[in-house]
């Protein structure tokens, strides 16, 4: 029988992991909610911002906070560029074409990153303290990431509920056609949404940079689980994605300690499959 302190440590680690996963999922879900398109390459945009943070901090000696801000800035630019260059022409295309286009973008980004920076893994090396609380060891980097992720999500919530453009974004997510009939400019809303989604990717990049090495195939580790969290929470459902992120991370973390690391992921993925049968619209969807 495992000591309860280790179980508690696993539960806390699950919450910390959940914060970052929720941040990733919210950015992706925000874009889907408004544009009705899944950016399969979302985590690869995160990867590009991570490279910028790495080069600014490790090569050019910028302080980490400034590198992180630049990473967020790049996220905004990438979000807008992806929308203008790739999403706009396919906005009214069949969903399969949209998936193929954003999937193609994923392979392009991965190959282009390999071409530019090779397949080497690059790490932002920071000397961070190790925190011990009552026999539990907690990662300082993860605590910081969790705190900032929560702040970013609160900021997103306030933006969507307390600003005019935020309200417009929510309105478009409810009915794309009706907004245009009322004289509003959906294109402007789309661009702002893509910029905000890109900014969330940039924030995630800054927070992941202090915990993970960056490499061209970084998206392979976080892409599938982010997408699964969005689907589990309900595509476009922000609250659902937030809850789903913590459900998945707790199963992975606590399940990993109770059974095995592999079994933690098996249980999480099995739950996902079961939920797709039981509640295909996501955990917060009303029963049909």
């Amino acid at each position, binding site marked *: 029988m495992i000591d309860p302190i280790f179980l508690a440590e696993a539960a806390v680690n699950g919450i910390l992991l959940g914060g970052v996963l929720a941040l990733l999922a919210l950015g992706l879900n925000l874009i889907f909610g408004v544009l009705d398109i899944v950016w399969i390459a979302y985590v690869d945009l995160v990867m590009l911002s991570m490279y910028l943070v790495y080069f600014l901090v490790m090569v050019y000696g910028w302080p980490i906070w400034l590198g992180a801000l630049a990473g967020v800035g790049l996220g905004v630019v990438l979000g807008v560029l992806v929308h203008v260059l790739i999403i706009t022409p396919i906005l009214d295309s069949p969903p399969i074409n949209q998936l193929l286009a954003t999937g193609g973008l994923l392979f392009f980004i991965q190959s282009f990153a390999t071409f530019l920076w090779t397949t080497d893994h690059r790490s932002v090396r920071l000397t961070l303290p190790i925190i011990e609380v009552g026999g539990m060891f907690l990662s300082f980097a993860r605590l910081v990431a969790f705190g900032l992720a929560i702040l970013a999500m609160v900021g997103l919530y306030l933006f969507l509920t307390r600003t005019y453009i935020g309200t417009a974004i929510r309105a478009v997510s409810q009915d794309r056609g009706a907004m245009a009939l009322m004289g509003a400019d959906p294109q402007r809303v789309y661009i702002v949404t893509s910029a905000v989604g890109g900014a969330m990717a940039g924030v995630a990049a800054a927070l992941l940079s202090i915990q993970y090495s960056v490499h061209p195939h970084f998206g392979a580790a976080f892409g599938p689980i982010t997408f699964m969290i969005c689907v589990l929470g309900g595509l476009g459902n922000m609250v659902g994605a937030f809850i789903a992120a913590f459900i998945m991370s707790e199963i992975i973390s606590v399940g*990993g300690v109770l059974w095995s*690391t592999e079994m933690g992921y098996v249980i999480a993925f099995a739950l996902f499959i079961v939920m797709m049968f039981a509640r295909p619209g996501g955990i917060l969807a009303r029963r049909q």
Partner: protein
Amino acid sequence: MRSLRVALALLLVAAVAFTAGPPPAADAQGQTIKIGVLFDHSGPFSAAGSLNCWRGAKMIIDYFNERGGVLGKYKIVQVDGDSQSKAEVAINEAERLLNVEKVDILAGVYSSAHAVPLAEKVDRQKKFLWITTAISDAVFKGRNLEYTFRPQASSSMFGELSVQYIGAYTQDRLKKAPKDLRVAIIYEDGPYGAGVAASNETEAKKLGMQVVLKEGYSVQAPDLSSLVTKLRAARPDVLFHTGYNPDITLFLRQAKEQGLRVRAYVGHGAGHSQLDKLKEAFGKEVEFFHTVDPIASQLITKQVKPDAAKMTDEMVKRYQAQFDKATPVAAIAPHVSMGFNNLWILLDDVLPRAIQKHGGWSADALAKAARETDIPEGGTMQGYGVKFFGAGHPLRGQNERAFPAVFQVQEGKFELVYPKSVQTANPVLPLPASSPLGIR
């Protein structure tokens, strides 16, 4: 906006066309041997050693071609395949090389996860496969492959040696009897990790050690904190780890952050042998970590025969000129040697015999020549001899004379610490308190 998109698309196509380069040279005279060289040029395995293997293979092929080819007259046409760190792509690339490019020999293969399915498929087609790098026993075990050969050491040799190394120093350095030594084994859950871990476990039990945890994980896992928590709960003295990258980087980061403490940390090749990459991620914190791999040839030039040592000088000279001037000679990854040395054995020993004695380089001629290979210890650049297990042996095709060695990072470079016969430095055991994983 539309014209901007069109311009961008054209620019992209031009860039791709420009970087794609000229097509490979045609087989003009019928006197060329086509070798398909299959490694991972993209994906996680690339930086974990696969690209370095390809560099070694390319350099030795260039070396032969500059001298007129095999036996001075049969030029080699190198046709590259990129497995992209994915088994299904490796299989498709192998099919392309064998049946579209019509290569005479398929060589390379970094990952055991690729080699295991590939070997059986290629052998069934009666095509010749020369594995330079992948180590899993499962490539050969019980399959009776006729056209597949591997000069490289096998996973059971890796797993046994690392445990024997710890066993040799348990009493003296770790101040414990083997029966009191607590060991944990963690591994990526493909054939490579699982193969090494299985022999770790068997050998540890044979030596009477307590295996307190044995657990696999996916190389793509985004989080390994639960594994670290379990390890802390199991309190091992020694941790044996088999992984690629970025999984080992992720594990080591989380192990440090979560306060994992052990007396010795022993990796097994792949990511653990890419010292420059580890140092980039962890700096001096990798001091006193171990890896197990065949010996990088530049570390044992005095223990090998002069013609093999001469080839090592050639390899080092070319590597520094073509790929990496900055890396000190001692730190050139063993994977460069695996590509260079293991292909040298094919080009210098097997192919000439196939041509002169068995009438050419058909798969049958090559297999016959390989079965006759008999290179004594010290006869190759990496120190080992070559003789392949024959028909009736469960590992038919595996080099029975190959051996790996245990290395430890000391003062920023790999030193050979085991077996004692090839030792270049005394091992530092247990991990000192200055190490992030050392017991305070």
